[in-house]
């Protein structure tokens, strides 16, 4: 009995010493946060984004780095910017996350990244997002590049590849709509094309007939029909007999979601649009990702799911580079390195804007996507102070 007690005491002593001498962080999980509007009007976009992220962490990415398990904490902002900020505070101050994914919507992103900038928490937005993140934030990585990077290549494609010379515009009268259209027009007119008409309708419009009735004849119609309800425009365009080719200069969510285009129906068949990801891309690992996604969720991944997977790949590649070190400066340095993702090869400018391909696609009669052209662009800040603005240029 005495021998047993002595043995037990020695074992406890050794265990205590090991516990004392081991670094406190060794078994601590590396916590990552995700904020999305899982309920409310942003729900469909958020749902796909989170599905992509979850699948990435469940099936494709390492479960631990440097001996520390990876833990992802998902928060619902209910599609409200103020709640998104509260959730960001919870993730940073209570959960101690080292990196955050999302939110998707420009308004939400600006609200949360203001706080996250102060706290030096690296934030990865999914896909293209407002150029203001590159201009006015220091800790946000815009994995898909600035919004203008999506529509600028469309102008190049329309003139150089589709050989269109004239264009008429129909777009939602919102800041982001102007951002997309201005940059599309800059590229198209810069190459020699001509925008002969611009019509802007209020957000939430359901009555498109008056606008359709005034569309002038051109080689094609460029649209940015944004918001979930804005998709109402495409059925009206088709029903009223608009036959010219239509290019939606950015997918605006629904057009690059296989689930959504099926629900919207035939009126979107033949429409060309642009975005960071479609399930038919021949990028490294995409085939496996599409198969796994289809098996789990019963449909091919939409653009937001692919962007979720890609953002997770970028984050995990950075953590691998630091060996699991989560100090902000080390993460910053690691995040700036290029990563191969299902979206394609992603690099970053010094201002954290993604340099990655924008894929211009056409919606086929079976609601799949035919990739027409992939163009890589970058956005750089030119000028200083109030004169500062983003300059978009084609890389390849």
């Amino acid at each position, binding site marked *: 009995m005495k021998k047993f007690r002595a043995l037990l005491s020695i074992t406890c002593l050794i265990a205590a010493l090991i516990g004392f001498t081991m670094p406190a962080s060794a078994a601590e999980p590396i916590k990552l946060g995700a904020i999305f509007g899982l*309920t409310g*009007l942003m*729900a*469909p976009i958020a*749902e796909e984004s989170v599905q992509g992220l979850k699948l990435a962490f469940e099936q494709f990415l390492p479960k631990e780095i440097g001996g520390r398990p990876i833990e992802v904490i998902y928060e619902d902002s209910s599609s409200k910017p103020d709640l998104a900020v509260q959730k960001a505070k919870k993730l940073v101050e209570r959960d101690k996350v080292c990196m955050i994914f999302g939110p998707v919507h420009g308004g939400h992103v600006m609200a949360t990244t203001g706080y996250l900038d102060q706290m030096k928490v690296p934030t990865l937005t999914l896909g293209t997002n407002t150029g203001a993140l590159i201009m006015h934030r220091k800790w946000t990585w815009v994995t898909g590049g600035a919004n203008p990077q999506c529509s600028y290549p469309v102008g190049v494609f329309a003139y150089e590849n589709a050989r269109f010379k004239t264009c008429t515009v129909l777009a939602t*009268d919102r800041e982001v709509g102007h951002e997309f259209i201005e940059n599309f027009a800059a590229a198209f007119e810069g190459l020699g094309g001509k925008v002969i008409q611009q*019509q*802007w*309708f*209020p*957000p*939430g*419009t*359901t*009555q*498109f*007939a*008056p*606008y*359709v*009735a*005034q569309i002038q*004849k051109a080689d094609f119609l460029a649209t940015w029909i944004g918001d*979930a*309800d804005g*998709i*109402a*425009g*495409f*059925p*009206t365009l088709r*029903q*009223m*007999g*608009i036959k010219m080719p239509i290019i939606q200069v950015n997918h605006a969510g*629904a057009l690059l*979601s296989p*689930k*959504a285009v099926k*629900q*919207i*129906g035939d*009126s979107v068949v033949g429409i060309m649009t642009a975005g960071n990801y479609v399930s038919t891309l021949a990028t490294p690992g995409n085939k496996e990702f599409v198969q796994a996604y289809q098996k789990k969720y019963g449909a091919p991944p939409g653009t937001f799911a692919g962007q979720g997977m890609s953002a997770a790949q970028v984050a995990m590649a950075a953590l691998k580079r630091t060996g699991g070190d989560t100090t902000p400066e080390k993460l910053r340095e690691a995040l700036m390195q290029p990563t191969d993702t299902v979206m394609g090869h992603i690099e970053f400018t010094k201002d954290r804007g993604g340099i990655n391909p924008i894929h211009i696609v056409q919606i086929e009669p079976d609601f799949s996507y035919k990739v027409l052209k992939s163009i890589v662009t970058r956005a750089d800040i030119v000028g200083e102070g109030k004169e500062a603005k983003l300059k978009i240029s084609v890389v390849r």
Partner: protein
Amino acid sequence: MDTLIITLLSGICYGFVLFLVATGLSLVLGLMGIVNLAHGALFMAGAYTGTYVAKATHSLFLGILVGGSLAAAVGFLMERGFLRFFYKQQLMQILVTLGFVHIITNIHQWIYGGWPQSGFIPSYLQGAIPIGDLGFPYHRLSVIVVGAAACVILWLLQEKTKIGAIVRAGMNDAEITTGLGINLTPINVGTFCLGAFLAGFAGVVGAPVLGGFNLGSGQEMFFVAIGVCIVGGVGSIQGALVGALLIGLAVNFAGTYAQSIAIFVMYMLMILVLLFKPAGLITR
């Protein structure tokens, strides 16, 4: 001229969709004094389920029947299960009906997902009447015909039948009407369910005119329906018709000829009516 004709027809068509949505809201408000904030959610419920059924069966009629009936059934549940305990308690009515907005919306998100959906147009209503280089879709013309027919039927029901006379009497003075030995409860329930049915019906037939629907469509339509009640006046078929057509035409003409004011033209109309005829253009 082509643009003018298309704008006019589009305005009338949209007006009749608004009429179908707003009539129920107006009658319930006039007869029972209930502000049903969930009226738009009933429109959305009808649109989702009715369109789903119509697409699955390729039958618009079946879609309308199911969409309208579902909305009426939810309306019955709301009235009998909750609202009858809160007559003349407007704050409670607002809380209860707002609760239903959230419940109905979340159930639809759970069942159908959040992406927008297109309306159902049967094969016999595909195509368009040529007007210049463009066309005006047959299904939109059919909405005008259906809306006008519904308007006539509802007017006859209100003005030429005994039930209609009781409804009108109940609106004018509920206490005296019940004092005459008339039981207003079935009339109240019937009016509430009819209003809900019309909202669901409008959801199915109106969806293609609105370019489709989503989880926010109910809220949007509720606010426009309130606008119709303010402009046209509460509690009459004629008021709902005048309000709906005026707003439908104003929105479409602004879209064609004054795009810069298109976003607030409905509110301008409401402000003008509230300034010069606060009870609405048609008063009982």
